């Protein structure tokens, strides 16, 4: 074993040891910090076996997770798939935490470990630390402690109230997990000082714009009385509220304190993962771009020999492979492929732009600093806005993207193809398809019949006639009714015509 840094070389053999891994990491770090300018959390690389990888899979990627049958189900399924050879395991799992935890599997060769370290410990890590959504919504430093708390708390609840009782609440909370996310920062309640300041500002504004003429205007609005009653009730209950779990946690009348805490835990986890849902393509693109750059540089430096380079290229190309729409392997757009292609494209625009690029991207074309440009993009965008901003005509042509309109009964119509007339339409439609808010139903709690039977009223605003999956909706509503304790009604109304399309009702189960 040599100790001279310069003679270190990653070869394609399958044997590796911790010392080699450490030195590979150091070489990678030099490139990542020096050339790409990445800013990362300290990383903790954990070597695990394939069985432990399956464990990590099943608990949705968090190293600590409370106990629930659904994780056992996921484990059983993944294990069956893996043992029968239907699927292979991921090379790594990376956790948005500080320090950033990266799981790597012992079976992989040193070249693959280098790839994984570059991909996860630098690419993903940088994205986690810098992207605005993650900064605003997740607490990388606290997540592991919080999960530790959640795990022990739920275990204690199981001891005290029984596994079934806990399971019932968790099942319901999981069913509503996607509706347990706050998309906008909640308004803070005002403190006295703030209130006084606003009041004096308002008075000053009124004095400044005083005009006696306003007094002479007639007082219209006769229908005000009835509306304000609803408005008052909504205000008191904080409605409309799109975060159903939050509403239940705070307002459901019959829940016990520990049940509220369970809802809160599930809600926090949903919120923690929400940025990942919105930035999957960018996140993977960032990591793939990073590992591609680093591995190429390592090869140029001679730290990665030709065999290892070929091994890397083999797995890289299969990761970023995008089958055509008519290919049997096609299953939608590969986020790795799109993200990587867009970032490579931005690099090209920065370094050697065409006239078209200069017209479309005057801000960045030819600025000769692709890495700074990308770093800014990684901070400020999410998938949807990133596509809206940076998908170039050149890339649309390269991928031969086209847009199809499907009205669910007649023939499909090609709306736009990769030509001058189609670029903007394609870009906008693709951005929409990556928009989590557009992909998920627009559900809100709108009212509670406080003077009647306390029925909870939910509304789903249906866009483009895309309704809820009715079988699932009924089941979820049963869960919701169980938590609320009274009847629940979900109304689907058309967003444009306000017409009621469908109504679901559920009541809590009669306890015998």
């Amino acid at each position, binding site marked *: 074993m040599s100790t001279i840094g310069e003679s270190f070389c990653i070869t394609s053999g399958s044997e590796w040891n911790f010392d080699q891994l450490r030195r590979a990491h150091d070489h990678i770090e030099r490139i990542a910090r020096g050339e790409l300018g990445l800013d990362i959390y300290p990383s903790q690389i954990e070597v695990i076996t394939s069985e432990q990888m399956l464990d990590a899979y099943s608990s949705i990627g968090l190293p600590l997770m409370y106990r629930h049958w659904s994780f056992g189900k996921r484990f*059983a399924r993944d294990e069956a798939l893996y043992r029968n050879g239907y699927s292979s395991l991921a090379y790594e799992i990376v956790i948005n935490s500080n320090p950033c935890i990266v799981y790597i599997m012992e079976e992989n060769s040193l070249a693959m470990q280098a790839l994984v370290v570059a991909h996860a410990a630098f690419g993903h890590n940088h994205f986690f630390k810098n992207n605005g959504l993650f900064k605003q919504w997740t607490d990388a430093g606290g997540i592991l402690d919080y999960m530790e708390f959640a795990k022990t708390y739920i275990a204690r609840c199981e001891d005290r109230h029984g596994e079934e009782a806990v399971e019932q609440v968790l099942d319901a909370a999981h069913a509503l997990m996607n509706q347990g996310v706050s998309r906008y920062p909640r308004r803070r309640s005002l403190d006295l000082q703030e209130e006084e300041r606003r009041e004096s500002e308002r008075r000053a504004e009124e004095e400044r714009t005083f005009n006696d003429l306003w007094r002479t205007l007639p007082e219209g609005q006769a229908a005000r009385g009835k509306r304000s009653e609803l408005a008052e009730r909504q205000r008191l209950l904080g409605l409309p509220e799109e975060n159903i779990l939050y509403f239940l946690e705070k307002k459901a009348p019959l829940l016990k304190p520990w049940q509220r805490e369970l809802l809160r835990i599930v809600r926090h986890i949903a919120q923690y993962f929400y940025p990942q849902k919105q930035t999957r393509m960018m996140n993977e693109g960032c990591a793939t771009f990073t590992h591609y750059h680093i591995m190429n540089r390592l090869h140029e430096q001679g730290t990665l020999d030709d065999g290892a380079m070929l091994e890397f290229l083999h797995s890289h190309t299969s990761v970023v492979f995008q089958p055509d729409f008519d290919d049997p392997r096609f299953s939608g757009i590969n986020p790795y492929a799109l993200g990587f292609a867009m970032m490579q494209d931005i690099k090209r625009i920065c370094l050697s732009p065409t006239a078209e690029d200069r017209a479309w991207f005057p801000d960045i074309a030819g600025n000769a600093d692709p890495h700074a440009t990308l770093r800014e993009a990684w901070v400020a965008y999410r998938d949807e806005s990133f596509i809206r901003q940076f998908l170039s005509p050149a890339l649309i042509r390269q991928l031969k993207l086209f847009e199809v309109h499907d009205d669910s009964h007649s023939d499909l119509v090609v709306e736009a193809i990769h030509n001058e007339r189609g670029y903007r339409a394609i870009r906008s439609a693709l951005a929409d398809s990556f928009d989590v808010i557009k992909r998920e139903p627009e559900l809100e709690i709108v009212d509670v019949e406080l003077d009647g039977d306390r029925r909870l009223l939910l509304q789903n605003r249906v866009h483009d006639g895309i309704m809820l999956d009715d079988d699932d909706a009924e089941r*979820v509503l049963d869960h919701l009714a169980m938590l609320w304790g009274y009847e629940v009604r979900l109304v689907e109304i058309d967003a444009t015509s306000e017409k009621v399309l469908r109504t679901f009702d559920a009541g809590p189960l009669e306890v015998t």
Partner: protein
Amino acid sequence: MNIVDRRLNPRGKSLANRQRFLRRARKQILEAVREASARDGITGGGNSRIRIKADSLREPRLAPAAEGGERFHVVPGNKDYVEGDRIPRPPSGEGRGRGGSGDGESEDAFQFVLSREEFIDLFLEDLELPDMLRKELRETEGTTPRRAGYQTSGAAANLNLVRTMRNSLSRRIALKRPRPEEIAAREAELAALERSGEAEQEVIARLTLELEQQRRRSRRVAFIDPIDVRYNRFENVPRPASRAVMFCLMDVSGSMTAHMKDLAKRFYKLLYLFLSRRYERVEIVFIRHTHLAREVDEETFFSSTESGGTVVSTALEEMQRVLAARYPREQWNIYAAQASDGDNMPADNAHAVAVLQNAILPACQYFAYLEVGPEDERYGGSTELWRAYQRIAKAGLPIAMRKVNHRSQIYPVFRQLFSRDRAVRTEAPA
């Protein structure tokens, strides 16, 4: 950067989740297990693949339906479409190659692997050995040593160092045995005084005397005295019998067809499996009989045929002989299962019943009589042997009798015999 080796972390992190999952899907898994066992039997090791309906495992979400409404898709790989082209709708809503996800299918049925232990646990759930508790308390298999405090004599291997040293320390403190450091300090002091040569003779003499006293005390008071020594004490605790022997008695005369033997074999297998989960060690004795009975090995027991008359009592006598020779009832839990088509030489019935009643049943934990019949038989009247045994059963002795005609009846009959629910167990045979 920090590299941590987690490979040696305890395994089975998701075991608790798996147990919850199995509990959740218990009913469906049980059905699947029964079905699988009817299909393959429960022979052989290895894991069993189980396929269950995923209904109780469904995790519903409020999500948009997969179909309906107006949608816009952006897809890659345009070959020759231009704006305004119409593409015929692919059949059955399989939106242009988007159907490959398979998510919808995996929700309908859920497939996973049960380990052999889990399988057997579920398979034999709710079954128990009749009257096992009573027997276990009464019968013991030797004794097992268990820690029980300390004693002052014993083998060196059982020396309890901690207890011994504690005694030694307290005794040394009580008897004011000087510690080696104290002696060393005094020696050093004395040496320093002598070297300096300034100290008075008197002081030196006093110090020397004190040192001498300390040394003497230290010699007299032993560091470890025999009275300090303690040994771990063990008590022999009687251990309940955890060995079982299972007698398989089978009629192999010409009237037993291959089908009947197959039925018997299946029953024996179940019984063996069941016993081996309850007892540490299970031995099997195979006794086959025509008009003569012989103890044979498994191979011969099931395979070769023999011709001759049928005298059941010979088998019972042979069992009695083996019992007496090798399996004293104080040490063994004894089970027996007899399979026969019910044929017996009429003159022998009374004798067989007598042997059974007087010699076999008192020794046995449980005696199961399985009357196997041809597959197509539906109204087989009761045989001589059946009637004879029935009289004993009515007398309340530990004998259970069932008739089996078809392979599919084996498992239900077995469950009936060993059901935890007494009412089911004692239900009169059909």
